[in-house]
């Protein structure tokens, strides 16, 4: 047995890999011929060899990863954070202005909120359709994904994308391709939070 943590030279690797491969083929052949209980034993042995084959590559992978990490361009984190804050904030500000206008126009709190959400969703959809929202998203990241306009973008972009496969197998089946996980886990978390609130109160 060899030490799995030592970085082998390529030649040593090849020798060991060939050795393991030979063994694997042989055991598989025995397994195919064996019957009953014996067969399971061979299967266990084969799986053990397969694991060894996988473990073998690990040190080389780790060594390579250390080369890669040095060269990976770093994300422009600060810029992204600032842009997300500014754009996300602006979208919320626009939402607030719309809400205030609705409220001034005489709508109640609930109605004004609903109308604001609807209008924002409409705007998100409109700008996705016009092809601007993805340009915004490229700069703003989470700033334009998290607000409700981002939700509209995720649905409308899917609808646009899959329209060509027809309204049933395309739009119908794939409309929630991106938004689906958000809905599933959003709903689940809301239930959990509701339960916690119910019992903690």
């Amino acid at each position, binding site marked *: 047995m060899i030490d799995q943590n030592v970085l082998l030279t390529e030649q040593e690797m090849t020798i060991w890999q060939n050795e393991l491969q030979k063994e694997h083929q042989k055991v598989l052949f025995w397994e195919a011929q064996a019957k009953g209980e014996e067969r399971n034993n061979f299967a266990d042995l084969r799986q053990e060899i397969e694991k060894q084959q996988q473990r073998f590559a690990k040190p080389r992978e780790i060594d390579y990863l250390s080369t890669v990490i040095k060269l990976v361009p770093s994300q422009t984190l600060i810029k992204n954070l600032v842009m997300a804050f500014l754009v996300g904030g602006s979208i919320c500000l626009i939402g607030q202005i719309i809400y205030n206008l609705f409220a001034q126009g005489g709508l109640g709190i609930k109605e004004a909120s609903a109308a604001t959400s609807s209008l924002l969703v409409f705007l998100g959809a409109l700008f996705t359709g016009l092809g601007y929202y993805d340009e915004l998203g490229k700069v703003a990241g989470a700033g334009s994904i998290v607000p409700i306009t981002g939700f509209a973008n995720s649905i409308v972009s899917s609808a646009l994308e899959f329209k*060509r496969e027809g309204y049933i197998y395309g739009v119908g089946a794939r409309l929630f391709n991106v938004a689906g996980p958000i809905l599933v886990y959003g709903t689940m978390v809301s239930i959990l939070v509701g339960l916690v609130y119910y019992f903690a109160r």
Partner: protein
Amino acid sequence: MTPNKIGKQTLQFSSAPVITSWASVVGPMEGKGPLGEKYDLVLRDTLAGEKSWEKAEQKMMQYSIELAMEKHDLLPKDLDFYLAGDLLNQITCANFTARFLNIPFLGLYGACSTLAEGLCMAGVFLEGGFAEKMGVSASSHHDTAERQYRTPVELGDQRPMTAQWTVTGSASLIVEKKGNGIKLTHATIGKIIDLGISNAQDLGSAMAPAAFDTIKTHFEDLGRSENDYDLIVTGDLGLLGHGILKELLKEKGISPDKFNDCGIMVYSPEQDTHCGGSGCGCSGVVLTAHLIERLLSGYYHRLLFIGTGALLNSLTSNQGETIPCIAHAVVLESRGE
């Protein structure tokens, strides 16, 4: 005995088949890139007047082989066999183009190494005396690739800095037993190399070791070094993958000065693609629009062209599998050697 195989993985084409004609068709973004003037046809938009991007990509491939044939006064019936591939599921662009051409066809899939794979195979056919004229095509389309491998095109998400931009483009070449053009003298068929990268948004790092392995084997098999070539160009490693390849080469004591990458050449930095271009079309259009012209003009005499492919699909990457990669190399020489 295998008289035409040298060393472990290299094929020698003693009869030196000739690339006699070639053509490239690209999308508008590539047309605005540094090689924009050199492409045969730049589409006005990514739909090319079709109803879907898939149809547009198929048309692109068709146009490129038609242009390559027309330049050399050939018709589909003059070709003995057609080899083609693309990135779509079941390589539909290639299949549909072959339906149009109506000639014997073999579909290829080597992800972004498809064009190099096609040239290897064309060399084998011609050297073996199985054909006189072969057509080779490969294509990729940014929007079809995005929707198949990643997310809807209009979704407002941020691409990571390691990401590459799939080139909208198709390239075709006609390879003949005899004629005027670029000689195809050797091919090195690559092994799958997987060093454990599983990030589908970082294909450059995944593919660099495969390219390195093929280059190293090619040198060993032929007893050549980087000094025997005027340029060694990889397909679509991008900025990051190219940087890693240079590191790997330096470790082996190979000077990386003569190396370049089509993924870097195809877009200008202002086009904000992060790590550069990728896709079958990337290496294809740079080869046909730029590199072959330079071979022809005598600027380069001998060139090593390495197609690099990441053999993943969206299921395997969602299942957390690492990315197996491959690289095939072909040696191209200008006729005046």
